[in-house]
């Protein structure tokens, strides 16, 4: 045993005694932590928080994504001044549960924001998300002011070469994308990639210049560390705003993936469409932002 190895083991032993064997192993990278072995987790049949608990557990828990003292930004869909049962916005209980998991994993701060379509104050309030975020100890951040958005380059974009993105997306250590699955007049469906439109300032530019390509382009910018696609209640038509609660069906499903394109491909299937029927999924696959080929992925399916 050489000297270096001796010291290493001695220190490790001391630490191991103090902190338990798991920490000892982790400390020196001797054993890779239980890395997520699934590309996609699909959960069905439970309440939003229960489904998330089960789903994230099968990916090794939130600690695989959020380390101690890290800042987290969560981007739900809070686009509309509608009540939670209209399912135009992400389920507030799901958002709350994700925040709780982040704090359990040791997160320092968890921020939540969206660049809303309706007046932001009313969206935050009436979606229920503001209330649940505050209850979980998260911080609601306004998304309505251009001063929060900074110019960034999108080098891999075809149409979009630059955009103004919310500073929290640029500064936070962990980015969790929490869209809701909905029908969408312009984008056919809105899911993980379309949800990222709410982290940029000038959305009209996207609408003017080919919505699908712009959505795909921006998916190459900053890959969310985790995509949690809420399909608990799903707006089947008249999206993204919906007309009434009659547009909504109960699907009680949840998808979790680190691959933004895979999450959306599976979401399309849940909705009853093929991934290649949605242009931005195809384009994003071509730009290698992720994979729409579900057959090539390892999928964990959980029924509750």
């Amino acid at each position: 045993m050489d000297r270096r190895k001796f010291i290493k083991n001695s220190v490790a032993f001391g630490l191991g005694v103090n902190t338990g064997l798991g920490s000892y192993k982790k400390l020196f990278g001797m054993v890779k932590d239980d890395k997520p072995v699934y590309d996609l987790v699909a959960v069905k049949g439970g309440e939003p928080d229960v489904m998330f608990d089960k789903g994230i557990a099968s990916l090794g828990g939130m600690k695989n994504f959020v380390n101690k003292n890290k800042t987290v930004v969560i981007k739900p869909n809070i686009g509309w001044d509608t009540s939670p049962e209209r399912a135009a916005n992400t389920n507030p209980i799901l958002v709350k549960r994700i925040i709780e998991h982040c704090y359990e994993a040791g997160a320092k701060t968890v921020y939540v924001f969206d660049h809303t379509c309706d007046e932001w104050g009313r969206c935050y309030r009436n979606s229920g998300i503001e209330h649940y975020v505050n209850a979980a100890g998260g911080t609601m951040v306004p998304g309505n002011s251009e001063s929060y958005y900074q110019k960034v380059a999108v080098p891999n974009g075809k149409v979009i070469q630059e955009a103004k993105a919310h500073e929290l997306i640029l500064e936070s250590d962990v980015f969790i994308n929490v869209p809701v699955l909905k029908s969408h007049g312009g984008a056919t469906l809105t899911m993980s990639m379309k949800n990222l439109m709410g982290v940029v300032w000038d959305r009209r530019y996207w609408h003017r210049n080919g919505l699908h390509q712009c959505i795909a382009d921006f998916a190459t910018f900053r890959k969310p560390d985790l995509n949690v696609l809420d399909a608990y209640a799903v707006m089947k038509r008249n999206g993204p705003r919906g007309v009434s609660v009659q547009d909504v069906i109960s699907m009680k499903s949840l998808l979790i993936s680190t691959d933004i394109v895979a999450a959306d491909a599976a979401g399309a299937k849940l909705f009853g469409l093929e991934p290649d029927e949605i242009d931005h999924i195809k384009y994003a696959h071509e730009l290698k932002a992720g994979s729409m080929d579900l057959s090539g992925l390892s999928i964990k399916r959980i029924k509750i």
Partner: protein
Amino acid sequence: MPLKKIRIFISLLFLFVTSLLFIDFRDSYVSNTSDYILFLQFVPSLIGFLKAITLSSAGFIIILLVTLLWGRVYCSSVCPLGTLQDMIIKISNRKRKRYSFSYHKPHSIFRYSFLAITVLMLFSGSIGAVVLLDPFSNFGKIFTGLFRPVIMHVNNTASVLLEQFNNYSIAPLQIIYNSAPVFIYSMILVSIIFVLSYKHGRLFCNSICPVGTLLGLLARFSIFKLSVDEESCSGCGVCAKVCKADCIDTGEKNIDFERCVMCFNCLEVCPTESILFNKINITASTADIDNKKRNFLAQMSFLLVSLPLISHAQDKIEVYVKNKFKVFRSSPISPPGSRSIGNFNDKCIACHLCVSACPTGVLQPAFLEYGLKGIFQPRMDNSKGFCNYDCTVCSHVCPTDAIEKIFIGEKKIVQIGKARFIKDNCVVETQKTNCGACAEHCPTKAVRMVEYKDNLKIPELTDEICIGCGACEFACPTIPYKAIYVDGNPVHLSAKLPVQEDLEDINPQEDFPF
């Protein structure tokens, strides 16, 4: 009893709570409290009463009774524009180290003409003179157009500072400036009021303001009046120097009570206690409103640097084809609850409280969109925002019921206008690309995307469920002209509620489709 102190306290209280109404940026209290706070404002109450006799719009009757008892207490204590002038007068007097008013004859031709014009126009069905002369609505215009943006700037500066420390507790506010003509009018107005009050005290109230003149006529018959005790008065003239209404003639030992704004300044300076009011002798010291003065100076200096940004830098767009067809509206759009443009133009005094309270900024003061008869009255400006489907704030704050109180259920079927589509401006047509922003924002799906050619979808409109909220127009990304816009309904119509079939839920025990 220190009547002057009481007057100062009440007037500052009214000014404060009235001002608060105009800076409720997130509708925390304005729609629940404005009815009470503005109950005693003379013109809003009178206009409301003329159109529909209700108890809630009887505030002006109380003011009339109070005037019959004690003179123009409204002018000294309730009118926010009056108190604003008092603050300017205070500054002016501090600057000169002493009060230096003196007796002047009334400008009777002016004041009675302004009153006569206002009354005659009102009886002939035009509210135009009220819009230009009413002190409350002028206060509202000044506050909304000039002070409010300053306060928003202060808020936004604080927000930026906190943001440096990752504190997001103060949200930045979107500042929408008045259009240039409205802004210029407010500036002229505030200049006139500043100069008049700085140099001549309450001259505005006694020469221009029709409410002041009307209440003055009534004050001639007041039961309790301020008067000079000719026997004990030494004729020293101190009272005339502190009289901001210039209405104490020490030579004649007479107070022109018609012009007296009940400030009670004279009561406390008279060395021989010769000024009588209800036989109460007064001893009081000058109230210290130094802080108010500083705040005001700060506001004014901000005002100078907060001139509106005329234009926003246009984004450079390379791939986009500019469209060609200008939008022509056959009618402007009045807010839901106003019933018709005619009704609205008749009742609105242009106090701009709704402009301040509107959470989306869609309500903006018109210039000539309604024509001269509706100058400065708010209209729906879809370039600034759109009418939120679930919001009725403006109808709840309107002090004259020009916008009648409506509730959500009714609001959702009031059709204030109809969307119109200009296909040749639409990106689906000009650029052959999918967009759908209009349909995306439409709350009723009166705008839907339907199959077009080459795998494209284009908007299709259903008039009968369109409410004219303007979400489609606001969201439409085309430049320089919109491809979809709302044409106003001169008389508001009733839209149908969108009818939908039920959908079937998905069985959660089904297998995953992948």
